[in-house]
């Protein structure tokens, strides 16, 4: 390990952005903030992508590490302490300069600051705090800031940083505590869930204080267990609190032991921060605490967990921790570590894609993990997207009459998404819709056609037969996003094998 003192800013940026590229989140969404005369920057709730790198991923934020020095030795990580790589660190001033100058030229929407762990989690987070405070107060930066939290950081620091960041995230890394122990020996589940809980409670308190009504919480009315107890009650252990935990127990009542253990960890984390956390004075009375909410990230394919397992964990996080996003990152064996699976044929992109599809179904379509997956079928179908797959197993609920079905029923139709459903509901107020109207409105009928009727009629006389529709859908399965179709190995067709036969056995 060589620490070079006089490193140019170019070289530092090269090293520390290269090291940060495996962080998935690059969203700048979730908060609307007008510009101020005295400062630079504003923020749009929709988020803005500023560029797209060669891998096709969006560049919205200046995604860098504060330092890539690290005392932790996580097996999957390129910057682990046992790797011999060039180490570099920014100073808070350098980070501020870069952010402001990039921002002025409209290269970026804000800053995404993560870090390796230098000396100790607290030491590193303190430096990060310094940088963020300098950026906000000395450089008057009013744009978007996303800050990573390092597991094991003191509560007081997390409390303070939250006033300067728009979004905070702490990586869950792996779906189970045992995998985490195996691959990231320095991190513990408790260290990850506790800050998450702390930020959640603080956000709720702050929203109550400012009288902000969060519509996003309301719209997720399909959630089985909302945190019903008022926020102040949650700060102190109460009976309702334990009731909630019981609820979540029922919700994720899975036969797999590991899932049970996750619920147990959840309840531990929920109970453990029941004590009052330290208080940091907000920069101004109207400041919002982490206004864009929290996100987290899991590595997919490094360990044995099934899709069912991963999705149950995500669902529990959405329901209990009010996360805005869970990101999935297809595992890449950057260290060629022999404890980990090889990714010679490329990272498992299709699996990642399916998980994101299912994630959307959870957040916007009112689906539950249990509906999509089960113990007998713990992984997603390779050939069909999760919603198609679900619809085919529930043909008894179809076809649906477009002119009568309610919003959430429309959302269950493969091919009809949030926009299409809204448009249908808006348009059918004025006249009964026909297939040609749907087409005109830009609703994709390729998949929907098997599942809907307009004015009581289907477009073609279709047999509602699982095998038939499966075959039809797979026949035009050109819908896979660019580049991940190479994961599928096509088979020679023969008269005797039916594709759906394989799928059923999976």
């Amino acid at each position, binding site marked *: 390990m060589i620490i070079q003192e006089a490193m140019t800013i170019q070289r530092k940026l090269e090293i520390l952005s290269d090291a940060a590229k495996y962080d998935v989140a690059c969203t700048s969404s979730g908060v609307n903030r007008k510009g101020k005369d005295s400062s630079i920057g504003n923020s749009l709730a929709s988020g803005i992508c500023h560029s797209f*790198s060669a891998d096709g991923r969006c*560049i919205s934020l200046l995604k860098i590490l504060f330092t890539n020095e690290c005392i932790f030795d996580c097996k999957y990580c390129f910057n682990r302490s046992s790797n011999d790589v060039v180490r570099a660190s920014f100073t808070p001033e350098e980070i501020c300069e870069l952010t402001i100058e*990039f921002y002025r030229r409209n290269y970026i929407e804000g800053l995404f600051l993560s870090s390796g762990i230098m000396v100790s989690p607290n030491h590193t987070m303190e430096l990060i705090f310094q940088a963020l405070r300098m950026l906000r107060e000395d450089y008057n930066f009013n744009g978007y800031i996303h800050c990573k939290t390092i597991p094991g950081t003191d509560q007081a620091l997390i409390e303070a940083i939250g006033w300067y960041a728009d979004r905070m995230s702490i990586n869950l890394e792996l779906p189970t505590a045992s995998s985490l122990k195996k691959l990231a020996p320095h991190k513990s589940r408790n260290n990850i869930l506790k800050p998450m809980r702390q930020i959640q409670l603080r956000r709720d308190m702050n929203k109550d204080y400012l009288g902000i009504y969060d519509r996003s919480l309301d719209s997720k009315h399909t959630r089985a267990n909302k945190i019903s107890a008022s926020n102040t009650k949650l700060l102190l252990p109460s009976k309702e609190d334990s009731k909630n935990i019981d609820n979540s127990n029922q919700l994720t009542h899975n036969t797999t032991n590991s899932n049970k253990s996750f619920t147990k960890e959840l309840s531990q984390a929920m109970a453990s921060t029941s004590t009052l956390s330290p208080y940091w004075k907000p920069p101004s009375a109207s400041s919002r605490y982490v206004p864009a909410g929290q996100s987290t990230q899991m590595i997919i394919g490094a360990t044995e967990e099934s899709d069912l397992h991963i999705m149950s964990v995500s669902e529990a996080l959405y329901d209990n921790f009010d996360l805005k996003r869970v990101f999935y990152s297809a595992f890449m064996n950057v260290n060629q570590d022999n404890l980990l699976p090889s990714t010679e044929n490329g990272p498992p992109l299709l699996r990642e894609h399916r998980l994101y599809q299912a994630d959307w179904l959870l957040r916007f379509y009112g689906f539950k993990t249990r509906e999509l997956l089960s113990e007998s079928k713990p992984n997603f179908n390779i050939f069909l997207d999760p919603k198609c797959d679900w619809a085919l197993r529930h043909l008894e609920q179809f076809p649906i009459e477009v002119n009568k079905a309610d919003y959430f029923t429309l959302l269950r139709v493969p091919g009809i998404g949030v926009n299409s459903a809204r448009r249908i509901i808006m348009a059918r107020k004025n006249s009964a819709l026909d297939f040609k109207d749907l087409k005109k409105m830009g609703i994709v009928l390729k998949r929907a056609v098997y599942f809907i009727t307009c004015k009581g009629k289907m477009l073609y006389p279709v047999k509602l037969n699982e095998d038939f529709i499966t075959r039809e859908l797979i026949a035009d399965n050109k819908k896979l996003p*660019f580049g991940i179709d190479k994961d599928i190995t096509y088979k020679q067709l023969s008269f005797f094998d039916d594709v759906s036969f394989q799928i059923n056995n999976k």
Partner: protein
Amino acid sequence: MNLTKIFVCENSIDGIFTAIYQAWSSGYGHANVKIEEECEKNTYSNIQLFSDYIHVKTNIEQALMVSRSIKTKISLQVYEMVCRVALSNYQGKGDLIYRFLVLGFHIGKDIIGHLSNEIVNKIFKINRYVNNEVHHLLGFIRFTEQDNGVLASIIHPKNNILSLVTPHFVDRLPKEKFIILDGDRGLCSIYIPKKPWVLAEVPVMDSYSYDKDIANGDDEYQDLWKIFFDSIAIKERINPKLQRNNLPIRFRRDMTEFFITDKNS
């Protein structure tokens, strides 16, 4: 025989609104009037037989009356939609807006829900198309710092969206002097702190010379940005098709990270 009256107007919101005012109040009847805007490159306008051409001189007062009635009698949302359509590159947008407003004044603010109606549908689609381009450019516009500290940018959008993107940057960069130039239309927007931003015409010269001036290779942050842009990509996931889908090639000529450095040549 009934002659169609064709109102030819300037290609701008005010021009189109003036024509709408005059056509509406002419008393010829909706079926007998047509609006044609002088289009950007004037390539599509076919002189029609059996019709009268009436040249409309843009009149701000009449245009304001139209926009006021849209805002009060239909809705602000419809007004914004109509403005975006008026700024689009759609051929025949003037007449489309006229037909849409005939419906709009009849039905009221619910008009936007009538998506199965041909005209409303068209308006909806053009509006979305313009909106998408605006949203793209909010991200893709690149400023380069000139030697005098002014931030300058050049864009080549399909629709005339300069007036739609500028307010965003005024809000975002209140302390900067900046200029955004539409290289194809000879228009630019200029902002100086504490003053309202203005739209100005510039002579359309060889747009290439503008490109070169604005690119200003001396700005050191351009190199830093390129370094960042290259190192943030994950090599194992390189996917040019996806990149092209998300960031169409037509935008790249104006984006710093895709400039070819001619330092070596």
